């Protein structure tokens, strides 16, 4: 096993661990807004690490360009998806207000 293969396996395992953590967080966090952090975030780093591991393993231009595209599209679309779900959850009131230390969005709405 070459050094590159070893590095690839380290990246793959680390990426898989972060994805697992995202799954655990998804079940353990108290409300939709906190869960969105888990659903979109450790998964971002996990996904990047898995892509990096794959790139080191394949080492061909065709595969690497595809992996780069996957990375770019994930990075640009994950925040949008998280925002849409979070916004919908907030607007329909599906969140635990008792867990919020401050809610400056509610303050703004009250001003009107």
């Amino acid at each position, binding site marked *: 096993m070459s050094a590159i293969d070893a590095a690839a396996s380290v990246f793959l395992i680390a990426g898989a661990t*972060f994805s697992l*953590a*995202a799954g*655990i*967080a998804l079940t*353990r*966090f*108290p409300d939709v*807004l*906190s869960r*969105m*952090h*888990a659903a*979109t*975030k*450790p998964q*971002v*780093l*996990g996904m990047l690490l898995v892509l990096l591991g794959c790139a080191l393993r394949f080492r061909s*231009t*065709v*595969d690497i*360009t*595809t992996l*780069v*595209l996957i990375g770019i599209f994930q*990075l*640009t679309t*994950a*925040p949008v998806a*998280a*925002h849409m779900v*979070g*916004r919908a959850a*907030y607007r329909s009131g599906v969140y635990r207000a008792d*867990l*919020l*230390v*401050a*809610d*400056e*969005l*509610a*303050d*703004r709405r009250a001003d009107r």
Partner: protein
Amino acid sequence: MNDPRPEADARTRRTNHVVALLGMALVWILLWGTFSWANLLGGLAVAAFILVALPLPPVVFGGRLRPVALARFVAIFVRDLVVASVQVTWLAVRVGHTPHSAILAVRLRVDTDLNLTLTAEALSLVPGSLIVEVDRAAGVLYIHVLDIHDRAEAERFRLDVLALEARIVAAVGSPAEVARIRTERSGP
């Protein structure tokens, strides 16, 4: 003099279209994986169709790329991404701890669409912060922050967001925007 949202004139719009055309053609070629003239022409045709059929509002890019500041932004972003991912992971497996959070309003100093979008994207990608609502007219981001327990932590986070905005403006902003960040650093 420095109107935050100048209308794009015809020339910048044309430049934007050419950049978008070439960018989409590049993505098309990357999707196929190999470069050939057929792929290039096919990509340009698809890109032209998308530009005509699905027009988007013009994005005003008044700044220029500064490689050193950009590298600094990327380096700090990667560090934040790793640190925050580990924190959220720890938060997930910790027993007997319910994470509190807060929704904070942060008014950005440069309220162009591009800066709002880039700052919001960078914030969203880092675990622990999620954009709940955007007030585009006022340039305010409403951010859901995970694991905040008191006012002091909230204020620290607000400063982090402003620092992130400053790094983005330093990397891609116009000279007027950079000056604005500099003068308002000590301000509200």
